[in-house]
């Protein structure tokens, strides 16, 4: 059974159709990329999976559970984590607190335990702290736990955001343009890091990306959106050879495009 199944997903904002009849699925342990020109509806698609937008029609099923009526926090409790295109950390909190905040739903202690400061509370905090330190180490931010998130460099903030997403023990990790704003060397590191996450932690990863080198280098499958419609899906090789995709990216002259949209 696929991990994530999407059937006939549509969403429009006023007169603008952002997503139209998208069918999509993802298996365990898979890295899938969603690509498409600007305004193709990739982020809308992401936002519907993570519960920010409610789909007009269609269903999203994750591990047999319907997601399309859930709030973002409920989606997170299904173990779907995400990062943001424009980094959204908790800037005035320490790096370690950023990660511990994301563990919120896994704490076992109650309000009563907090007020008494009993063993269960201390153990819960100590375990969370240790795991957060481990995650920081995992993303290469070892020893930076006492710094405010806003004081990290851009690349470090990207990695902290991924560490925070990993803290909710995701089965599916949604990465919204993880390489945006990174230089070629950092992009290469990010690519290896994403593959490492999949291999070591076993998460399925769905990403939106513009950097073709990155996408071709790590994806098992690629889905292409254009004007809110899925125009192609397949392995990197298949996508490279797909005429429609090349046209969507390189553009064709106006007249032909009209015909294409109408058909």
């Amino acid at each position, binding site marked *: 059974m696929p991990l994530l199944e999407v059937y006939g997903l549509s969403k429009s904002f006023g007169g603008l159709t952002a997503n139209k009849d998208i069918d999509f699925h993802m298996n365990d342990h898979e890295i899938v990329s969603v690509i498409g020109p600007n305004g193709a509806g990739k982020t809308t698609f992401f936002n519907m999976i*993570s519960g*920010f937008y409610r789909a007009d029609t269609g269903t999203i099923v994750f591990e047999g559970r319907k997601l399309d009526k859930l*709030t*973002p*926090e409920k989606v*997170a*409790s299904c173990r779907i*984590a*995400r990062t*943001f295109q424009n980094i*959204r*950390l*908790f*800037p*005035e*909190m*320490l790096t*370690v*607190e950023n990660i*511990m*905040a*994301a*563990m*919120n*739903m896994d*704490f076992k*202690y109650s*309000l009563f335990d*907090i*007020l008494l*400061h009993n063993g269960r*509370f*201390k153990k*819960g*905090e*100590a375990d*969370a*702290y240790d795991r957060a*330190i481990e995650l920081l180490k995992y993303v290469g931010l*070892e*020893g*930076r*736990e*006492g*710094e*405010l998130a806003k004081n990290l460099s851009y690349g470090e903030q990207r990695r902290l955001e991924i560490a*925070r*997403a990993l*803290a*909710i023990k995701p089965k599916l990790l949604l990465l919204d343009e993880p390489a945006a704003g990174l230089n070629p060397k950092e992009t290469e590191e990010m690519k290896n890091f994403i593959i490492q996450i999949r291999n070591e932690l076993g998460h399925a990863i769905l990403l939106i990306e513009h950097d073709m080198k990155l996408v071709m280098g790590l994806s098992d499958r690629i889905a292409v959106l254009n004007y809110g419609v899925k125009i192609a899906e397949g392995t990197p090789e298949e996508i490279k050879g797909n005429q429609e995709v090349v046209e969507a990216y390189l553009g064709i002259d106006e007249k032909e495009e009209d015909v294409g949209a109408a058909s």
Partner: protein
Amino acid sequence: MGKGKGLIKTILDRQLPQLIVVIAAPAVMYFTRAITVTFILFLLSLLLLYLSKLKNSYKLIIAAVDLLAVMPLAGLANSYALDVITQIGIYAVLAIGLNVVVGFAGLLDLGYVGFYAAGAYVYAFFATTQANNVIPESVMKFPISGNWFWLFLPICMLVAAGVGILLGLPVLRLKGDYLAIVTLGFAEIIRIILNNADKPINLTNGPKGLTPIQPPSLFGIQLNQSIHFYFIVLVILMLVILATKRIYNSRIGRAWAAIREDELAARTMGIPLVKMKLMAFAMGAGFAGMMGCVFAAKQTFIDPSSFGFMESIGILAMVIMGGMGNISGVVIGALAVVVLQLQLLKELSSYLRDLTVAGVLNIPASLDPAKYERLVFGLILILMCIFRPKGFLPAKRSLVFIKKLIGRNGIVKDNTLDTTNISNTSE
């Protein structure tokens, strides 16, 4: 200003002068029977004690002696000073409660006094004959005895927290300014209800207020002296500080901070938005309700005019002046505002009046400094905005607390990269 800062820094860095000051100031206050000047010195010495670099155990001992022995003894000679410090305690609890909502969770609440009123009226209703307007005398005769006060502390807390949740459920979808406006309206609604709920059934006695409210009693002794309320408020303040600190440094406090920083990101991380916001609202409201109960018992008279809009603003000013998000900061804010209100401006007024009577100056009554309290407030707030926009003691995040809690305080140097690395590898 640079020079002044240098001086303050020297005093803060040297332990001996600090020790002398924090021991001498209470002694001087005691022997001068807590006249205004020495009383303020005493309060400043408490502040210095808190900021000093003395060992924590010394700080605790000195603070305990100051608050448990020196102040009550001095208060026997001058109960006005005791009233002032009790008032500071009451406002400190209110400011801490509001700080939970505004400072921790980032929800601007301009109607905080509504919860204070709810707590006060719950106790006042049952601790006067008022309750007999609803419950017939044959069932139970009111006022209840002072022993019930202790039970009413948690009851008032729960009632106010419940009101907080009821208000919160619909309005917490709003953010920022919109939330502020709705909460402001809510407090006004509470005040207007209290003002008008004297007909058709007389619940609140309207603008005439409720009196005489039964003071608390313990083991058959009626607690109606300043000193009794001093201790009641002190105990509640300590409990509230402890509880707030612990909750703040837990997953709940982190969830609040996350919501304040970025609501959407927090939800994506599985933090239940509505539940956490309601919790902050309920906790802040609960503290206010509990203090309302104490306030009613202390004053033995309450009326709706004690719970006006300016009261909410006053408490908010304490939070902002002291340092939003910092518990010690808002206690200092409460101290500063109350001392300004009840001591400095009042003293200045009476001094000028004396001069007028003696014929040295001729100051018309309309220029009486006590009447310009809000103006002075406004000036102070403007100055704070310019020079210390984050308040007197701004909130600071550090690893010290959690390391101490979980026993990793071998080397606590949160901002030094090298040492943290060493401590990590050694674990």
